[in-house]
């Protein structure tokens, strides 16, 4: 199984998103891919435009929620979808570039809008096998 991957997990009314990667940054990138996959197949999102994002939080878990919420905001206000991410995390918080394109309703067939990321089932940390995991439930 690839080190970097994303997956969904079940939640009663909403959806759990999970990113796994060799580093914390890679896990955050995969987490964002998992969120896009709630809306559409990320493979179908062309990396036509780059958007820079920054966020800061007291700990890794709140940072993961902030990261997703920053993307939710950019998706909503720019009416874009993102399919590629480059995340770096340093002393001054998270900096990222997200690549994507305007929503094309015929091609992307977006299933549902993500309202926001939540603190439910929120976890960020290194697993026993050395990989990083980041996850939470997103409200749709």
């Amino acid at each position, binding site marked *: 199984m690839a080190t970097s991957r994303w997956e969904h997990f079940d939640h009663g*009314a909403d959806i759990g998103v999970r990113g796994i990667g060799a580093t914390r940054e890679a896990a955050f990138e995969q987490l964002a891919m998992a969120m896009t996959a709630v809306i559409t197949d990320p493979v179908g999102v062309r990396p036509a435009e780059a958007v820079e994002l920054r966020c800061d939080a007291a700990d890794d878990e709140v940072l993961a929620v902030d990261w997703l919420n920053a993307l*939710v905001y950019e998706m909503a*206000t720019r009416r874009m979808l993102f399919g590629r991410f480059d995340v770096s995390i340093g002393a001054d918080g998270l900096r990222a570039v997200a690549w994507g394109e305007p929503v094309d309703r015929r091609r992307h067939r*977006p299933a549902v809008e993500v309202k926001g990321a939540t603190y439910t089932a929120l976890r960020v940390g290194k697993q026993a096998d050395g990989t990083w995991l980041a996850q939470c439930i997103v409200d749709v």
Partner: protein
Amino acid sequence: MDRTLLTRVGECEWRIEPHGPMRVPGILYATEALIDDMDAKVYEQVVNVATLPGIERASYAMPDAHWGYGFPIGGVAAFDPSRGGVVSAGGVGFDISCGVRALHTGLNVHEVAPIAQALADELARAIPAGVGSEGRLHLDDAEMDAMLAGGARWAVDRGYGVTADLERVEERGCMAGARPDEVSPHAKRRQRDEMGTLGSGNHYLEVQRVAEVFDPQTAVVFGLQVDDVVVSIHCGSRGLGHQIGTEFLKQMVAGAPASGIVLPDRELACAPIESPLGQAYLGAMRAGINCALANRQIITHLTRLAFADLAPRAVLPLLYDVSHNTCKVEEHVMDGVTKRLFVHRKGATRALGPGHPDLPAALRPTGQPVLIGGTMGTMSYVLVGAAESEARSLGSSCHGAGRAMSRHQALRKWRGRQVVNDLAARGVIVRSPSMRGIAEEAPGAYKDVTAVVDAAGKAGLSRKVARLEPLVCIKG
């Protein structure tokens, strides 16, 4: 949920005795079958809410309760500010003032049948829905603030509807105490192009027929008879409400320790009502309520235009408009003393009984219409607030069916196109930009709404007035 954790008090009433840090009991209204089906997390969340400072009487769960964020969805709790009571962003929810509005059409099913396809096309064209959709109205900063302060009243002043509409909206269409200045620039930016949009997920606009009347006397007052056609709109405060919820949740999580609040779950984040953060949230949340009321008012206007083109005889006055994600200041009698309480209803509908002074004169003899959304393939209900609801649940009832399975399970089980075809075979026309969205919202993914409203009836929260069946469903 494990029934052995509960004390059965009546056929549809169960109690969680106070234990540990619980300040009040938990009270759940449901049949034995609904309790058995209820998520174990509901128990945990009802208990957690009961530990919050200043909670009065009980932490309640309605018959449709399911696992929510901090509060259960279907949760009701009232807090007394004079006893350190709190306001909780999670207790209101991300989609502030999400609710249901029902409109009469003045038409019957025989008049609508020949134009149903055209009506579906026209409504789908006229009402922006789904991801990436944009409203036709774009607000500048001054208009945004005016909308956040004025709610549906603002919309009517701008020509979206008539003054008579406001009488049939909770708070007469305008939530007092809104503070547009407490709503962040981000939240306003997110809403700038979203007025008059339906959203996605479980939100919808449906043309429905009255399929059955249970309480003829009340139905006459509500203006409903079998084969009448009505329109129901389910949506909320769109991007603005979500952004307010997200931002204040984070601030409340950070601020809780300084207020001496121990949070058993971060999603339960709250602030004392009498604190700057609590007051700021209340001001912003009330602005969010106004946004939802304005949004449903604009969609009402668009619906009327769509009908006017195809059925010039149609008139579409409001039956009523309810919100099921709110925190409102209300007076309730606690042990003989009238108290001013902050009542959270998260996925719960206010259900005022007969004679309540907040009801418009025409509805005062019957009680408040309680509008319950079902699924696109089955049915919705119009209920009426029961006289006992005040004593039972602080004047509250259920809000919908609740999901029986996750979106993933639904996707594995159904294909959107097949769902649309099956519904078409049963006379329900569905329009949606997303077939995957349709599969995720398949009727079978929801619990039986009839079991929920019957339990609400047996529990004395509300009574059934009429059952509605969809003819046309516009999904986001």
